[in-house]
């Protein structure tokens, strides 16, 4: 950042006497605008299209394929449609809160992008409390959702809002506890620091560092799905039970805001997991060119995140929804104790092997490969048994 500001001042683009503070502020503003407008919002839209296509494939349908190539511009058409719709605010609702709620949810979705580590230098602010910041600002969603549910003055919305509050607050705990093993091993909360402590090869990822981190990664992913209101934890907006949950009374752009935040949160969920456990942007040093290296790193990071986004779509298309008591049981009776065991286990592990155990990484990676092989073998078995026709071409 400082070198960038120095270079900009030296280039004379801001005049001779430009103060470093002013230039730094402008750079941050421009970069934020580029990230929010150029990455975050279109990403949320594109994910909505991608999710519909992925679902369609899983459900043996075609999905949106009319607007643009392969229906790629469907999200723009949907956005325009929602902007054109009437913004209905119920008479009996608490209008100021009702109007404000979607913006809060949007805020909770945009703030984490500030610490999104796209590559070794593509990061808006490498806060020294990066991961803590990320978990705290994403928890702001619950305020917006609860506000929406309460202000709508609709019983279904209220149940949705309360469910959401209970769910997000509960799952914050295992999610937070699952971050600790990584923090224990690296001794830093900074996103870049955590990524730098890992290597590009899978056996150097924290996912395979020891059995405890592997469990922690899984718990974190499931808890993040629960916090993002994704199936099997989509109770706050359970369509078949609560009509549309907290969003029942919303229409037009405000309604879209909730769902943009939901789709965009997929990227954030993926980014947290990729950063903490999957080596983030780590890529082997193939070139000395910094720009090329950064591009390769950004591609690596995005591929990892998109794979996780795809997995969450896949889960959503496959699993049924749990009931609220089962949701709470899962969190308080299983995830919270297991997370504590994980944390203590990692602490003991770090005490025994302060620099990590290299052999364990290879063993766990081999185990993961074996699991993947068993999974693929099962899929092939079921496909053979049901004698289904399988189409591998994704562009139909």
């Amino acid at each position, binding site marked *: 950042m400082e070198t960038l500001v120095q270079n900009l001042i030296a280039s004379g683009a801001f005049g001779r006497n430009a103060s470093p503070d002013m230039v730094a502020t402008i750079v941050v503003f421009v970069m934020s605008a580029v990230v929010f407008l150029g990455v975050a919002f279109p990403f949320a839209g594109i994910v909505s299209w991608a999710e519909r296509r992925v*679902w369609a494939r*899983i*459900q*043996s*349908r075609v999905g949106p394929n009319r607007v643009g190539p392969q229906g790629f511009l469907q999200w723009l058409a949907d956005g325009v449609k929602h902007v054109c719709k009437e913004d209905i605010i119920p008479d009996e609702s608490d209008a100021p809160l009702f109007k404000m709620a979607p913006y809060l949810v949007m805020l909770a979705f945009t703030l984490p992008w500030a610490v999104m580590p796209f590559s070794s230098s593509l990061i808006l602010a490498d806060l020294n409390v990066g991961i803590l910041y990320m978990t705290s600002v994403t928890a702001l969603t619950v305020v917006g959702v609860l506000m929406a549910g309460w202000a709508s003055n609709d*019983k*279904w919305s209220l*149940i949705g809002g309360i*469910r959401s509050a209970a769910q997000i607050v509960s799952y914050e705990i295992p999610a937070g506890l699952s971050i600790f093993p990584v923090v224990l091993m690296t001794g830093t909360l900074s996103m870049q620091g955590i990524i730098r402590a890992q290597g590009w090869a899978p056996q150097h990822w924290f996912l395979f560092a020891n059995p405890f981190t592997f469990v922690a990664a899984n718990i974190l992913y499931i808890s993040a799905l629960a916090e993002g209101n994704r*199936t*099997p934890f*989509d*109770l706050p907006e*359970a*369509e*078949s*039970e*609560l*009509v549309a949950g907290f969003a029942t009374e919303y229409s037009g752009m405000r309604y879209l805001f909730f769902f943009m935040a939901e789709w965009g949160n997929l990227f954030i969920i993926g980014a947290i997991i990729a950063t903490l456990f999957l080596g983030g942007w780590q890529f082997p040093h193939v070139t000395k060119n910094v720009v090329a290296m950064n591009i390769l790193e950004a591609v690596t990071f995005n591929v990892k995140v998109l794979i996780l986004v795809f997995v969450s779509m896949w889960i959503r*298309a*496959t*699993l*049924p*929804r*749990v*009931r*609220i*008591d*089962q949701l709470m049981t899962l969190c308080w009776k299983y995830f919270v104790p297991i997370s504590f065991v994980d944390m203590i286990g990692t602490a003991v592990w770090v005490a025994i092997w302060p620099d990590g155990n290299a052999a364990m990484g290879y063993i766990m990676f081999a185990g993961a490969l074996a699991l993947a092989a068993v999974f693929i073998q099962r899929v092939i078995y*079921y496909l053979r*048994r*049901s*004698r*289904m026709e399988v189409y591998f071409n994704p562009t139909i």
Partner: protein
Amino acid sequence: MSTLHTEEMTLNMGPQHPSTHGVLRFVVRADGEVMREAIPDVGYLHRSIEKIAEKVGYHGFMPYTDRVDYVCAMFTNQGWGMACEKLAGIEVPRRGEYCRVIAAEFNRIASHLLSVGAMAMDIGAVTPFTHAIREREMINDLIEELCGARLTFNYMRIGGVAWDLPPGWREKALAYLDHFDPILEEYNALISWNKIYIERLANVGAITPAEAINYNLVGPNLRACGIKWDIRKDIPYSAYPDFEFEVPIGDGHWGKLGDSMDRYVVRIREMAESSKILRQALAKIPGGPVLAKVARNFKPPAGECQIRLESGRGDMGWYVVSDGTGYPWRVHVRTGSFAAMGIIQKLSAGLMIADLVTLIASLDVIAPEIDR
């Protein structure tokens, strides 16, 4: 807990609600997520079909019977046909009876597919529904070839069926059954034995055998409680005595006897049994006419009759009173969904709101059949 004072909330669920399978309405008294009571309110889909029968005559009423239960219209067709035949003492040709069985069993599979698919949808899984509907579409294609319609079939007539099987249809039907049996296994692997799914269904809305009889439950809902009562076996009609098939009953394997999972599994197993019946019927179908000679101006002798048949939703009764004219004096249909609706109020106490959706889906309540 008892010292904590909580306020009850009255929720209005329906008639416009995504999971009420048509226009049903429940008044739910809930304490937070837990229901105290869900009071069903019927009558939103009442179309006076029974009264229409008194105005359109015997032959003319056949298309209206489709609308009694549009998910399994073959059975309502057959019920009306059987009632009129019994009144007038008409013998249906053997081939006609076989055609009826084939059409009806295909319709039973289609109806159960919709039921189990919609149930998965109500639990929150979206994929099984589209897979079930895909298979149902193929059955609809077959039936369309048979009678020209996909939903309201109007296939049967008093004295038999309207059309014989088209050329090449038998082979197509057999090919479909060969495709369907593995698909059923795939469907089970996809959703039926899913851990979350079983957790959601097991122990929810368990009905004891005595309750089931007291509340007049019929069909899969009754059999799920462990009572082996199937009209096709116990009061045989049409060509059913010719076929070998099992009557699946619930055994409480996943939770209590007669819970939602039992009702679900009974439907899945019934589809496999229907497939068996269809294979036998397609193999043994005799030649000959499909429609008995019935006067165009059909005037059964004065009297009354009651017939029973096993529809997709269970024991369906048709009661017809004739006064010797061309119009029935009174028609009454006894349907399974109406009885199933009655037990929801009793079962709902203490369940979660999410379980009410499970309960409605597992009882396979079809709105038009409740109100007629």
